[in-house]
């Protein structure tokens, strides 16, 4: 098990691995998302309060959930990168940041779109909304820091440290709704125990949730590949790879 893990952890073999895996990830992502969104946007019954406006949920919740999970993932990758100085984890940080940033932006956008009909305003200085906005700034900060360095390893390690320290913000975003009396509704779906949402609304949501996780995974894998090529451009496995691609 460990040996297998170690072999996978070396850049070239990981590159090959994701070269094989990522198409399938993409495929299943599109499949699930397609079904989930279709089921959500057409088949699911309109909400008894919100009418059809609620259907944004099928984009909003996955995006929001990802905005948090991806950051957590980045912090974890950071810890690994710092302790074991693992190239793979280092490239993962650089790959996760932009993806996470875009999902956060999406959550904000869909949230605002949803807020207009629900709360009668695009934006309210509400705990969760604001903390999510702050999360976006965190992502942008990491992207900025990463691009400020010339040496990729130094950049990765700096970003790792920042990501870890910045992780204090994640629980605040997640539980803001419970700690402050927020406009934003409390967790009903993404919480342990019995979710309180009717199946015909819930099932599609979970499916599109899974789909978007896979999609994010695909994006991250691809970005990691790029990052690895960039860092290892002087290594011979890269030059071999390129020459192979030149042949046909």
């Amino acid at each position: 098990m460990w040996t297998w893990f170690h072999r996978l952890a070396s850049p070239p073999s990981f590159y090959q691995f994701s070269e094989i895996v990522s198409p399938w990830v993409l495929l299943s992502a599109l499949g699930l998302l397609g079904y989930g969104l279709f089921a959500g946007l057409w088949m699911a019954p309109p909400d008894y309060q919100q009418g059809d406006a609620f259907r944004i949920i099928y984009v909003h919740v996955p995006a929001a959930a990802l905005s948090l999970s991806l950051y957590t993932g980045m912090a974890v990758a950071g810890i690994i990168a710092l302790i074991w100085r693992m190239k793979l984890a280092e490239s993962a940080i650089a790959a996760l940041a932009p993806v996470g940033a875009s999902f956060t932006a999406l959550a904000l956008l869909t949230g605002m779109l949803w807020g207009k009909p629900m709360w009668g305003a695009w934006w309210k200085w509400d705990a969760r909304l604001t903390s999510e906005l702050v999360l976006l700034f965190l992502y942008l900060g990491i992207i900025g820091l990463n691009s400020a360095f010339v040496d990729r390893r130094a950049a990765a390690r700096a970003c790792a440290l920042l990501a870890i320290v910045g992780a204090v913000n994640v629980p605040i975003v997640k539980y803001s709704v419970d700690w402050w009396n927020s406009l934003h509704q409390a967790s009903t779906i993404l919480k342990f125990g019995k979710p309180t949402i009717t199946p015909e609304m819930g099932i599609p949501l979970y499916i599109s949730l899974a789909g978007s996780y896979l999609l994010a995974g695909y994006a991250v894998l691809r970005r990691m590949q790029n990052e690895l090529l960039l860092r290892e451009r002087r290594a011979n496995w890269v030059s071999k790879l390129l020459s192979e691609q030149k042949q046909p």
Partner: protein
Amino acid sequence: MYLLSAIAVDVARGDRALLEGISFSVAAGDLLHIKGRNGAGKSSLIEVLVGLRRPQRGRVEGLQSQQMHWVGHRNALQPDLTLAENLRSWCSLQKLKTANVSDALEHLGLRALRHRPARTLSMGQKRRAALARLLISPRPLWILDEPLSGLDTQGTLLLGKLMNAHLADQGGIVVTSHQPLPGRIARVSVLDLA
């Protein structure tokens, strides 16, 4: 018994490989003169020796950096602190007694300047201040990167004397210099990176 030895050391800057398979050892009474054209990698190698930079491959054995005196390209003088203050705060950093500070300054002819802020010193005066550290406390190994740059003839001869004295009482020296070293030194070995 060696003071310091490098074993098959590779050095890189960023992703550029600089040196490969560098091996040497410095015994008590030895002086190792590292030569090489500009950009050969002397300073980078020295930063590896003092433990500031990790070698790409290979390892460095021997004394800890607490037993070395290192004078790099930069003089580590805070421009707004006076000469004396600079050396004293260096002492406390190195956990050394500050008793010898004024003697050291005296020895390098900086006595009159000891209350001047470092920013108001001439190039060579700053260099002398950096070298004054060698005299504050005896340590077996000196690692000097271009110590002669900016020194006048008197200063160069003085450094030659100091190095000889240090070698005489069983010290070791690793030094990079483009100019020939002053004074007649008994046991010199040269490492040419060119």
